[in-house]
């Protein structure tokens, strides 16, 4: 007891090195992180602040000067420029077409390929192959396959008596073509996430349910599907955000056309900023995209926290 009472006094001498040890560790940690943090500040935080500022200004190309215009650019986008809502409509159609198709196909493929049977690895390899391929290459090949009359797809359709449309020259078909080819390109990624989740489900769950007399569909609906919940949520948010980012695929396949039928938000930002040099307006668009993605991310993080 006496020793303990004395400790505050004697510990004084030990205090200093103990403190410096902590400080030393902290200093080393900051050193370790310094390249990443410096880059983060220069190429992310700075530009993010700058884009907010740009979005409140109007650039004059001739005089190379910017004038503060308040929320004019946002007002332009939301209320004056009909292009904006047309582009948002395209992005939403793209997402609504892509996300359910991608997820349904990913889950079906995962259910088919999560087990072990001869050839399963070959099939997984095939379905995942487009994921490692460049979007530009994938789009070039599909653009070639989907040409008007001479295109391979239409030549095949002609064999069974169907006159295929000029896929990439008609707005609605172009949108459908871009969605479907994008799904084929990316579905492998969600497939392996689902396979990983399926393989994490203990085999005796299914066996127990079968002993109780459950059918295959009932096992899926009552046992497997609820257990896949967290994975489904993550996949849904990641795929939705991904669908808002799509640029290279559309740039190569349709160039945003025809009649702006595939002009989505990411493409519109590029077009306004780097083709029309409307920096203020493009920055406002970028901020709107930022808000959309942040909302989706926050939804994902809160839902996931509630789950775990």
């Amino acid at each position, binding site marked *: 007891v006496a020793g303990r009472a004395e400790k505050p006094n004697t510990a004084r001498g030990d205090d200093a090195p103990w403190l410096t040890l902590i400080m030393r*560790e*902290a200093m080393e*940690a*900051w050193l*370790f*992180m310094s*390249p*990443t*943090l410096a*880059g*983060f500040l*220069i*190429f*992310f935080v700075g*530009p993010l602040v*700058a*884009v907010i500022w*740009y979005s409140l200004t109007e650039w004059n190309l001739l005089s190379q000067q910017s004038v503060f215009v308040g929320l004019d650019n946002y007002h332009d986008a939301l209320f004056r420029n009909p292009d904006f809502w047309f582009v948002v409509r395209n992005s939403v159609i793209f997402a609504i077409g892509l996300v359910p198709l991608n997820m349904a196909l990913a889950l079906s493929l995962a259910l*088919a390929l999560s087990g072990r049977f001869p050839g399963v*690895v070959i099939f*997984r*390899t*095939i*379905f*995942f*192959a487009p994921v*490692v*391929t*460049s*979007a*530009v*290459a994938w789009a*070039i*090949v599909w653009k*070639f*396959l989907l040409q008007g009359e001479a295109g*391979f797809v239409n030549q*095949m359709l002609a064999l069974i008596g169907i006159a295929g449309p000029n896929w990439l020259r008609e707005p609605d078909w172009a949108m459908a073509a871009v969605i479907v080819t994008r799904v*084929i390109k990316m579905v492998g990624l969600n497939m*392996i*996430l689902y396979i*990983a989740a399926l393989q994490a489900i203990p085999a005796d769950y299914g066996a127990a349910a079968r002993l109780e007399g459950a059918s295959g569909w009932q096992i899926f609906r009552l046992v497997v599907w609820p257990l896949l919940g967290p994975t489904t949520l993550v996949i849904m948010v*990641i795929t939705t*955000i991904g669908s808002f*980012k799509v*640029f*290279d695929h559309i740039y190569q396949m349709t160039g945003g056309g025809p009649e702006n039928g595939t002009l989505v938000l*990411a493409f519109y*930002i*590029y077009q306004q*900023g*780097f083709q029309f040099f409307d920096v203020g307006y493009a*920055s406002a668009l*970028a901020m709107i*995209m*930022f808000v959309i*993605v*942040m909302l*989706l*991310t926050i939804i994902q993080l809160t839902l996931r926290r509630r789950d775990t």
Partner: protein
Amino acid sequence: VSAWLTRRRTRILYRACWTVALAVVAVPFIFPFLWMVSSGFKNSAEIFGAPSLVPREWQWWNFVEVFNYQPFARQYFNSLYIALTVTALTLLFSSLAGYALARMRFAGAALIGLFLISAMMVPEEVTIIPNFFLIRWAGLVDTHWPLILLPVFGPQGIMATFLMRQYFLVLPKELEEAGKMDGLSRLGLWWRIALPMSRPALAAVAIITFLNSWNLFLEPLIFVSSLDKFTLPLALSNFTDPYGAPLWHLQLAATSLDVLPVLIVYVIAQRHIIESFALSGVKG
């Protein structure tokens, strides 16, 4: 016995139907690659003729013409060295930062983690306009610097940092303690203990970073304008006639040269590559 035989037979039949169905679904996944290579060997007339997977006349010349039409060898080299540089830098910086976030105690670690994780999801399109002015101000337009710096420090690099952090978090403490006893410095602990034990995470970061850089499109499109500074994704669609219409036989030959090496490595190492993507997909 006959009942067992019929059951066995129906099972085999069932399996066969299943495999055929999967094979049909697989067609749009694998056929584009076959058609790409096949068309790369066709001459410009046959390419629009009656479809045939095997070229009637093998036009090897396409693969030479690809290199004559524009500085394709140079562009290929650009893509390769940029991807390797980006991968090396990302491995270095992400493992250092990830190590600090996972294994070292300091005030603000949680806050920095939160900042980084929210930045990870932000598309490049959001910050690309200010980054363009930054790069222009630094006099680096039409150089390869932005194609290296932006991916290393952008969302890609941050994702890599998180992947490394998640992996470092679960490494056993004992080895580090032993290393400290042996008098290893912090840098020594990172280099001699943490890194050798994290090969799967390092491999995952390397594979994904390399592929991302190899396939990068927006940054080259915005920053690079000289032909001999192009990377492959820019060069591929650049095989056009004077009116801008694509010269398909050259585009597809060039695209084959872009895609096939990646696919070959992928088929050889498919298990590791698929695992790497799974690892990064379920990131914290």
